[in-house]
Every structure is written in structure tokens, then in C-alpha cells.
């Protein structure tokens, strides 16, 4: 688990770290949306420059980003290979049965790879620089308009924040249960598929039962502390929108406009 960097938070106090989570979520959405409009060298160049600029502003070392990409390496390779061999159209360089390498196939493989990498890197940048809690706050605040259609935003936010709070607790518990079962002779990660699935059961069931017990306990504790419903509560934590947020949002909107304009070049 320790080598798994994807989705982690790297503490820091850079320009990007200090941005409002709402702003960062919006920036991320804009960027990912615009990636799908990019279609030529200049648009990708612009997107890459903006991404690299953001990474530099976030002051997160490049090797951590590369470690974040590593678990996705095989997925990337698989998609690219599929695109190369099954892409059709344009000049045919090589052919064998249903497999062929064509000019258009190579181009679309390149595009897909580029898009994948850009999207993964920008979302990694979001999780590296934003605490899960802040992301939850940001999501809640962005969902606020949905209150108008009676969507239970406050309840959803509470559920989100409770789940996030219990992730490390449940991870610890899973490790404890695994070690306890190991000490009784359960052998994890060996044997055939059937055998391996069977060894999951002695982890899963106690974990579920304990989670139910926790849910009961925490709901009693919440009720004892005066929790009635998600609505009508005051909030201790507040998000602050600053000028840096507006500046970066304007910057990304301009970038989006430019990408759509440059799209016409080909």
C-alpha cells in the first residue's frame, strides 16, 4: 500500500496547495473537458505547458508524479497497443490478418496516450495538493445548487466526510484482521484463484461485522451530541475564495478558449 501514490495527498504550502478546493475542482473539470477538444500539435503543446506550469507551481517533485503514473503503466500500454494494431485508415505500413499498423492508427494511439497522461497527471495534481477533506468540502459546496431540487447535499457531505474519516481506521483494522488470521494459519496470496478468493472471506466478514458495530456506535454518539439531520446546522469549517482562485480560473478559461481556437488550425 505504501508504494501506491495515486490519490495520495502530499502535504505542502505551495501556490497550488493554498488554492480553494472549489477552484481546484473546477480547474480540473475545465482541463479534462478541454483535453477532449485538443486535436493537433499546438493544442497539445498548450495543454502540456499549462500542466507543467501547474506542476511547477505546486512544487511537488517530478519523481512523485512518475511514481503516481507507474501503477497505470500497463493500462496505458494496453490501450496504446490496441489502438496501434486495430486502428484503421490512412497509409498501411504493415498488415497481418486482422492486425495492421496504419498511419491513422498511430496518430490516434498517440492522441489517446497523450490524453490519458494529461488527464491522469492533472487529477493526480489535484489529489497531491488537496486534502481529501478539502475535496469533500469542495464537492459539497459545488453541489449546493442541487439543494433547489431537494437533493440532500448536507447529508451526502456528512456521509462523505465520515467515510473519509474512517478510511484509515478501517485500513488499520483490515491489517489487524489479516495478521490475526495469518497467525491462525490462513495463507494470503497463494494458491489458485479459487483458493485466493476463499481466503478473502475470513477478512471480509469480520470487517463487515465490525463496520456495522461502528455504524451503530457512531450513530448513537452523534445522536447523543445533538445531531438531528443534515440541514439546519451551522458550519465550523469554511472555504475562502481568494483572488488567486479567480486568477487561476480566468487563466484556465482563457486556455480553454485558446485550445478551441487552435483546434481550427488543421
Amino acid at each position, binding site marked *: 500500500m505504501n508504494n501506491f501514490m495515486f490519490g495520495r495527498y502530499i502535504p505542502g504550502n505551495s501556490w497550488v496547495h493554498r488554492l480553494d478546493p472549489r477552484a481546484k475542482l473546477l480547474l480540473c473539470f475545465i482541463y479534462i473537458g478541454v483535453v477532449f477538444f485538443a486535436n493537433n500539435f499546438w493544442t497539445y503543446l498548450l495543454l502540456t505547458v499549462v500542466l507543467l506550469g501547474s506542476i511547477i507551481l505546486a512544487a511537488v517533485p517530478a519523481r512523485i508524479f512518475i511514481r503516481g503514473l507507474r501503477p497505470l503503466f500497463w493500462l496505458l500500454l494496453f490501450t496504446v497497443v490496441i489502438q496501434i494494431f486495430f486502428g484503421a485508415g490512412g497509409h498501411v505500413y504493415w498488415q497481418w490478418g486482422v492486425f495492421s499498423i496504419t498511419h491513422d492508427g498511430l496518430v490516434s494511439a498517440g492522441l489517446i496516450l497523450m490524453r490519458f497522461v494529461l488527464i491522469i497527471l492533472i487529477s493526480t495534481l489535484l489529489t497531491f495538493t488537496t486534502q481529501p*477533506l478539502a475535496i*469533500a468540502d469542495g464537492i459539497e459546496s459545488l453541489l449546493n445548487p442541487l439543494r433547489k431540487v431537494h437533493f440532500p447535499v448536507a447529508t451526502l457531505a456528512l456521509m462523505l*466526510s*465520515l467515510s*473519509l*474519516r474512517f478510511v*484509515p*481506521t478501517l485500513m*488499520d483494522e483490515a491489517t489487524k484482521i489479516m495478521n490475526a488470521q495469518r497467525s491462525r494459519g490462513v495463507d494470503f496470496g497463494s494458491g489458485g484463484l479459487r483458493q485466493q478468493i476463499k481466503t478473502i472471506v475470513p477478512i471480509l466478514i469480520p470487517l463487515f461485522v465490525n463496520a456495522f*458495530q*461502528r455504524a451503530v*456506535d*457512531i450513530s*448513537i*454518539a*452523534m*445522536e*447523543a*451530541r*445533538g*445531531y*438531528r439531520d443534515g440541514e*439546519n*446546522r*451551522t*458550519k*465550523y*469549517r*469554511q472555504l475562502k475564495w481568494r483572488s488567486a482562485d479567480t486568477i487561476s480560473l480566468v487563466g484556465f478559461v482563457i486556455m480553454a478558449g485558446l485550445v478551441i481556437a487552435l483546434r481550427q488550425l488543421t
Partner: protein
Amino acid sequence: MADGLAIISVSNLTYQYAQSEAPAVNDVTFDVEAGDWVAIVGHNGSGKSTLAKLLIGILAADSGTIDIAGTRLTEASVWDVRETIGMVFQNPDNQFVGATVADDVAFGMENRHVSRDVMIRRVKEALLQVGMWEFRDREPARLSGGQKQRVALAGVMAVAPKILILDEATSMLDPEGRSDILNTIKTLKQKLNLTVLSITHDIDEAAQADRILVIDDGRFIEEATPQALFEHGSDLIAMGLDVPFSAKLTELLAQRGVAVPAHYLDEGSLADWLWKSRLTK
């Protein structure tokens, strides 16, 4: 006892779980006066925790009444009653609602519609009181059990209840964390004139109390001061309590033929007694 000062007044309380054959709480009557520290002790399954849940209205009694600070506990008044009671539960992990220490302390106030400015001030006050202010931005996963219980205590203190109920609040802590929490509670009690009702196995916690109520099979079987109760010596084990160290020592001395005093001595007075008895030899 019922002299009008009682802040908690329970009479003929009975509760039976749907699946069980015998009532978990059976015809229980007691009063707690404002500013008192009362301990309820009993072995596992004696009905202590059920009693705690009845007191804050999580469970509704089959019969009997509960009056808290002059209000009769009913379905309509349950939220008002909860305003006056703060409760710390057993498992430090399962009562930590907030994502960070400060958020958890603020949770109770958020529920009571306290404005944000007041909340910020009171979170700080409460965390300073329990000595956790420098941990305000920590997540629960990075705290020890004792620290989590201190945060739970701060969360309770921030809403300024009149009554503090400890439902085995120290039973999952190590000895150090336990005495730490008990000292904090003692200080808070004095400062804020709290009424403390502690439900416990722990001998040190019971020894802090002004009165001890012993519960067995859902019934109160004895009510005494810690002094009087600890004179039972090894009978305490049957009541779900440990024997205090000084009582164990007294008993071992008696076995070896030392003429020890018959009444209970705490560690200080036992040391005094030993000291004097050597002088007269």
C-alpha cells in the same frame, strides 16, 4: 435523598430488550444531586450501558420515569434533555465524528446552531482545557486512544452541559491514559461544577466518586461510599470491580497474621498506618 436538589432523578425504571427474557434494567430508582460524582458499577451484562442509553433517550423505558434538571424525559423533550447532558462513550474511535480534532469538537455546536465566531472561540477554549490545542489539525488516525477520549471530552465541554455521563470512557485506555483522563475530568468538574455519572469497571474511577451504586442483573443491590464499599475486600470481584491495591495488601498482611485495621484504608492512610505500627513495635 430526594430533597429537591436532585439533577437526575430516576424512579422505578424498567427496560427489556425485545429478544431477551429478563429485563436489562429492572425497577431501578436513584437520585443524583447537582455537583455530585456518582459511579455505577457492575459486571458485564449487569445493565449499566442500557441504563446510560435510557438516560439520554436513545432507548425508551418500558415503565418508570427519568427527570433530568427538572425536565421529564419524554419523546417530545428528548432533545432538550440532551442539551443538558454530555456523554463520553467507551470506544475512542467510534465516537470521533469530525475529520480533524477541531471539527470533532465543533460537531456538537454545529448541531445546536452556534454561530461560527462563537464556535471558533469555544473550540479553542475546550481544547485548551483538555490540553489538546496543539493537536487541533490532527486526524483521528494519528492520535492515541487517550488523546481521542480527551477530544471527545472537549467536544462535550464545548456545549457546556450540566451533567457528564461517562459510559466506560476509560475502559479501552492504558493506565496512563486512564489516569490522565480522570485527572482532566476532576479538574473540569471542579471548574464548571459538573455533575458526573460514571459507569465503570475501573477501580480508580469508582474511587473518585462520592457515592457508588452497585448494579447486578439490572437491579441496584447496594449503594455506598467508596470507603464503605471497598471494605468488602475480595467480594468486590463478584461485583465486577477490582480490589484496590491497598485492600489487597491489607488482606495479604492479615493472612500473615498482622493485626490490620478492619476498615478500608486508601494507599496514603495504609502507608501512615504501617509507618505508625512500626514505630510502636
